């Protein structure tokens, strides 16, 4: 599942249209949209709002770990041209001075930059930062739910010393984001490939539930069972574990010993 956190509807609308997202009922106090493996939440302006929205969306989506997260929005810059699309390689909260460093593990289709999350719209553009108002709140929250390699902040430059924030209209914000939908989509596709690598690693062994239904395992025994079944799956992907011999065992402890012995008796290959 891909989670978008976007401050305002004009910034979100191009994503909603592009991915055919539909508004969901019962998502108060936020507005959540969904479609084809993606959810988008309108957070409102500011890092606190972005953090709250990310936390809400995580719970709303079932609390799944290691999902893809992306904060999309417009931003200011001292030198960059209006319309430039930027992926964050560093996010700093101006107030606390704290920084986060999204690992860039994919080949990026756009430049990367340091993002500074400010409290109020930036008008002086003193440093070479991407100035915006949500990324620090978003990132510091999302990284509690997912591994950092799957979390990104994508910003499109909407204002600079030559064109102030006052000129950023909803229509301009919409147009700027719309111009970068392809780039966003490439980043998401490449990140999805990474995320897919994690799915089988976290999946329960195929026959885990059968075992739990047949015997009573304590919590620590369940961990051991899960590990033993997974190991057998790795060593012999086509092995029939749920055999008559196993089903004939009386206690959970016997089952665990049986599986342990099975592993130790298998031919060891590379």
């Amino acid at each position, binding site marked *: 599942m891909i989670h978008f956190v976007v401050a305002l509807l004009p910034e979100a609308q191009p994503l909603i249209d592009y991915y055919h997202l539909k508004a969901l009922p019962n998502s108060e106090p936020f507005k959540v949209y969904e479609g084809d493996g993606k959810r988008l939440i309108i957070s409102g302006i500011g890092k606190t709002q972005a953090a709250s929205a990310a936390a809400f969306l995580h719970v709303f989506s079932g609390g799944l770990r290691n999902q893809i997260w992306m904060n999309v929005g417009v931003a200011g810059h001292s030198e960059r041209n209006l319309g430039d699309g930027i992926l964050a390689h560093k996010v700093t909260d101006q107030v606390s001075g704290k920084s986060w*460093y999204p690992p*860039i593990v994919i080949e990026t289709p756009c430049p990367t930059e340091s993002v500074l999350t400010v409290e109020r719209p930036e008008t002086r553009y003193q440093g070479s930062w991407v100035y915006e108002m949500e990324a620090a709140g978003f990132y510091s929250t999302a990284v509690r739910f997912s*591994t950092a*390699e799957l979390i990104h902040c994508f910003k499109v430059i909407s204002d600079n010393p030559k064109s102030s924030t006052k000129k950023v209209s909803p229509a301009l914000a919409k147009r700027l984001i719309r111009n970068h939908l392809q780039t966003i989509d490439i980043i998401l596709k490449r990140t999805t490939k990474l995320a897919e690598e994690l799915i089988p690693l976290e999946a329960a062994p195929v026959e885990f539930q059968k075992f739990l239904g047949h015997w009573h395992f304590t919590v620590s025994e369940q961990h051991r069972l899960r590990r033993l079944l997974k190991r057998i799956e790795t060593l012999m992907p086509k092995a029939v574990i749920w055999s008559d011999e196993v089903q004939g065992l009386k206690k959970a402890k016997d089952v665990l010993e049986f599986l342990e012995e099975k592993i*130790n008796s298998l031919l*060891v290959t590379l």
Partner: protein
Amino acid sequence: MIDSIYIEEEIQNHPRVLEVCERFPKSRRILCGRYGEVFNRKAQNFRLQKYRPALILAKKFDHFVLDVPKGYGIGSDRNFYFSHMLNCIYDCRYCFLQGMYRSAHLVFFVNYEDFQAAIEKKTNEAPGIETHFFSGYDCDSLALEPVTRFTESFLPFFAQLPNTQLELRTKSIQVKSLLNREPIKNCVVAFSFTPAEVAAVLEDKTPSVERRLKTMVQLQERGWKLGLRFDPLIYHEQYKEQYEQLFQDVFRKIQIPSLHSVSLGPFRLPKEGYENVYKLYPDQKLFAGPLEERNGMVSYVRGIEEEMVSFVTKKLLQRIPKNIFFPCAI
């Protein structure tokens, strides 16, 4: 090869930092406070980062020289290690580093002079007693040599340090800096090996066994003292034939007088490290096989381990004198 370089602000103008940046003009440069802000933070995935590890240029402040655990060593009772780098460009599935760090980024400590001062101090604490220093514990000593120029700085330093021995441990063929200079007497260039079939499966991105051997021959001809490290020993059905073949290949090319030491050690990981690695690679047969925990270490079940160590020891001692053989005593 390196897309991202993180640089600690304090050292952004250090000559080694400038040199590295010059070498990678297209890499993105990201300033950070201390390397710990980037490296080894929670919510990082070693497996995913291994696709594109970044380089972190940092300054080390303390713990420059550390005690080597008892049981390791190649002939001295006084053993220390130091790490100018953390992590490795290679991707060996059995490596303990992947269980030790959450991050696969490569940390390069540029303040060599501080390491050297600490090494000198350690040496002076026991004058007259031979002290061994190992450089390849938390990284491959030579794999990133063109970037770090580690030997260029440390070989002349050790050359004038009496009663010391430096071990460079590697799988790399980056030995130009060694071939271009006179060997120093108190340096062992030790190469790690598993059989070619094992290396092909478990040692991603490393030079082949054949290329490593070719490199050893070049060093041998130049007069460098060599080491052989069969650590970890990897068990599987054909291990006897494959180790036999490996030893035939090695000792056909490497002459005994060139050898300073030969060591071996069974596959083992600290319990916590094993748990971390297993979570990253539950699909890896190496971690799913017949392993057990003993004294805080996860290794092959006792019968397998004893059989393998005994077989490999016997085969080695048919070829080398006992006084250069140092099995890991863990």
